[in-house]
């Protein structure tokens, strides 16, 4: 197969198979599972086959007339990293899901959307046309929604609601950016845009910030991250894994495209990204420390790791000519994070599969006597904290280098602050994962002594082991990974500044990693152990004081939205009913006037006359009249309505007609003669 065909294959084949699988699933679930495993495997193999084509070259397909703007797909080594991890992760997660989902309902639906998400994710990573990218992006957003709310309980729906609102809003912000972009540049090709966009003047900042916001929602960028900690715990574990491992990467991918390719590493955006990156790292890490829900913990961890990536992207921009290290660092971290985060989620998934609990207090000591699980989890743990020897170490080191270099280059004193923050955030990572690890695998809990072999079979463990192996390999031989992607040099216009011969295991690197880890352990010992753990009935109980803290969604977004909603509701309801209200108002007014009661004039006169008679016709006594008015007994009361009715009837009479005639005659005569 030629490269173009293969490229088409990796997106068409799964989409076709998705449909087949859905119908298969209606018949027999087992066959469907096996079928899907094979599909993802074949796709993975196809992606591997593509490697030789893209190593130095790019593969492109373009089909005109589809979707208005035509379809333009492109794969190069930069994009390949994303495609590769997607197909790999999907493969192992499919294997894992087949075991995990056994007790779930609506499995067929799950697989349908799981696969649609797969296709669209690959689509995002290989589309060269912005509109195509947006299309796949939206499909992915919507297809992942059913995965999040799979449980169909209140919690899931609430998370789903937040997710879908954020995703739609983000998508629309992105679309706004695309609108403006297109109206200024008349093209949607990312390659062409890079020649136009940077020279557009200030509008380019509007466009790019819209893009960053749009993608940032997906990437869990502060303060748009609120869906992330809600969606992860609500979704079934495989879904959380892909959310955390892959879907957030689409946001990162988009930001890389925007900042690095389309905007040619604009300096302001880069600074912005560095700041946001630190914010993300810090908030994510800090909040993760408090979480007792293990999935939430990992969700915040993802947020924090996304911060590293954003920081990396920012550094690419700051480093200008020496950006190679930042580029490789970022991309490597994308790769690494996907693998170890997926693995950690799978580990948690296994725990959940057995216990159906996610709270750290409930599952304390679960893993103490489960060596495989313990080991693999430990590997994941080491990777994420950047322990030398594991892949996280390499990428974090590179990003750290990039940061330091950026500080040097710009002669900025802020570099020191950045450095300190980097250490602190790294320490947070260690701390929260250490908390997790000790709680699950170190604590002793008699409830979980039993063996759960029957519940955890090889289909669940195999993916974990596979990724653990990858982690170790890439951890030990990071340079090998880098060599594979030489093609990136050309794509990013890099002057190779010796990335490939970085000595990762230099003394200083190891020391800095160990300092970070040590700091983390210190935090664990002095903060978590002291503040977050209380002893109740001889058992450690983890408390989460952050639950009552300021919550962006509950305390800021929701009130604002609700107020806006209420105001617009009132205003628009008025608009909606303006004519009817007006009509009703007039109707009521007329009715009101016609029902006003008043004393009939003639009866008033009668009453006066009567009074006169009573008071001997000599003088008129007002007090009696007033009394009468107060009592209102002698007067005939009438309403305007009745009076009008009466008048209409009288008007109809001959006398009044003649009166009217006379009046009209006189009126016209006067009018005519006066206004001559």
């Amino acid at each position, binding site marked *: 197969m030629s490269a173009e065909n293969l490229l088409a294959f990796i997106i068409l084949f799964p989409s076709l198979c998705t449909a087949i699988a859905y119908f298969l699933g209606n018949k027999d679930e087992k066959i469907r599972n096996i079928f899907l495993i094979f599909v993802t495997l074949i796709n993975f193999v196809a992606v591997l086959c593509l490697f030789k084509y893209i190593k130095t070259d790019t593969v492109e397909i373009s089909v005109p007339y589809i979707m208005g703007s035509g379809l333009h797909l492109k794969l190069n080594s930069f994009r390949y990293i994303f495609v590769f991890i997607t197909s790999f992760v999907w493969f192992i997660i499919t294997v894992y899901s087949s075991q995990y989902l056994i007790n779930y309902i609506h499995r067929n639906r799950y697989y349908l959307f799981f696969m649609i998400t797969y296709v669209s994710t690959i689509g995002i990573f290989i589309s060269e046309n912005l509109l195509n990218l947006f299309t796949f992006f939206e499909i992915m957003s919507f297809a992942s929604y059913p995965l999040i709310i799979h449980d169909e309980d209140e919690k899931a729906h609430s998370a789903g609601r937040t997710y879908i609102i954020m995703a739609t809003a983000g998508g629309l912000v992105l679309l706004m950016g695309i609108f403006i972009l297109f109206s200024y540049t008349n093209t949607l090709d990312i390659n062409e845009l890079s020649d136009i966009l940077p020279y557009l003047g200030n509008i380019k900042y509007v466009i790019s910030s819209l893009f960053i916001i749009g993608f940032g929602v997906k990437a869990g960028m502060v303060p748009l991250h609120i869906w992330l900690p809600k969606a992860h715990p609500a979704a079934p574990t495989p879904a959380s894994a892909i959310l955390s491992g892959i879907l957030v990467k689409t946001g990162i991918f988009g930001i890389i495209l925007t900042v690095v390719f389309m905007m040619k590493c604009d300096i302001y955006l880069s600074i912005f990204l560095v700041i946001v990156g630190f914010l993300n790292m810090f908030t994510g890490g800090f909040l993760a420390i408090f979480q007792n829900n293990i999935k939430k913990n990992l969700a915040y961890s993802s947020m924090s790791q996304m911060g590293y990536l954003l920081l990396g992207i920012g550094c690419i921009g700051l480093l200008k000519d020496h950006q190679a290290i930042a580029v490789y660092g970022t991309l490597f971290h994308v790769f690494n994070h996907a693998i170890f985060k997926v693995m950690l989620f799978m580990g948690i998934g296994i725990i959940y599969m057995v216990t159906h609990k996610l709270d750290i207090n409930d599952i304390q000591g679960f893993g103490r006597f489960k060596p495989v699980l313990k080991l693999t989890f430990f590997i994941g743990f080491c990777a994420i904290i950047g322990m030398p020897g594991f892949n996280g170490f390499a990428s974090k080191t590179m990003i750290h280098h990039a940061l330091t270099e950026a500080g040097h280059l710009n002669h900025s004193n802020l570099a020191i602050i950045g450095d300190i923050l980097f250490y602190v955030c790294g320490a947070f990572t260690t701390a929260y994962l250490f908390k997790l690890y000790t709680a699950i695998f170190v604590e002793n809990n008699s409830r979980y002594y039993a063996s759960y072999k029957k519940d955890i079979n090889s289909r669940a463990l195999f993916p974990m082991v596979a990724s653990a192996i990858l982690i170790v390999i890439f951890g030990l031989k990071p340079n090998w990974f880098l060599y594979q992607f030489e093609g990136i040099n050309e794509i990013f216009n890099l002057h190779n500044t010796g990335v490939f011969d970085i000595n990762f295991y230099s003394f200083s690197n190891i020391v800095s990693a160990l300092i970070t880890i040590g700091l983390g352990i210190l935090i664990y010992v002095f903060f978590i152990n002291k503040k977050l753990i209380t002893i109740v009935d001889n058992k450690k109980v983890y408390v989460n004081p952050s639950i009552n803290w300021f919550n962006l969604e509950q305390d800021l977004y929701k009130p604002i939205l609700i107020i806006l909603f209420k105001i617009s509701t009132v205003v628009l309801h008025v608009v909606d009913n303006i004519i009817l209200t007006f009509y009703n108002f007039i109707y009521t007014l007329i009715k009101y006037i016609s029902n006003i009661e008043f004393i009939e004039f003639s009866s008033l006169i009668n009453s006066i006359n009567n009074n006169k008679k009573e008071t001997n016709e000599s003088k008129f006594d007002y007090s009696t009249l007033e009394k009468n008015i107060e009592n209102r007994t002698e007067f005939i009361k009438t309403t305007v309505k009745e009076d009008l009715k009466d008048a209409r009837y009288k008007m109809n009479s*001959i006398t009044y007609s*003649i009166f009217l005639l006379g009046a009209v005659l006189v009126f016209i005569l006067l009018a005519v003669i006066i206004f001559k």
Partner: protein
Amino acid sequence: MGIVTNYFETCSIILFGVGFATLMFHRNLIKKIIGMNIMDTAVFLFFIAKGYISGKEAPIITNSYKGIEGYVNPVPTALMLTGIVVAVSTTAFALALTIKLHEKYGTIDLDEIIRMKGD
């Protein structure tokens, strides 16, 4: 000044006013019809006054023809004869209707008639 010199016209306007007032202010149908007649008469007077030229004779040749200059304008008089006929017939019709009304309602007081609704 016009009022004094044009006393025919003044008179007829006053008469018209009287007739109109009668028509307006009386409830009794017969009186209304009388008012109507007074109005008509006023108009006749007015019209005929237009044809009258003081010092001229009526256009009836008794002795000898005096030429056109000698007589008043006969046309208004002739027209008013028609007018009177019309007025008479209208009055007759109105009176006949009054009788009918009295038959049906038992009264010719218009206010009372108004109060009696129905066919």
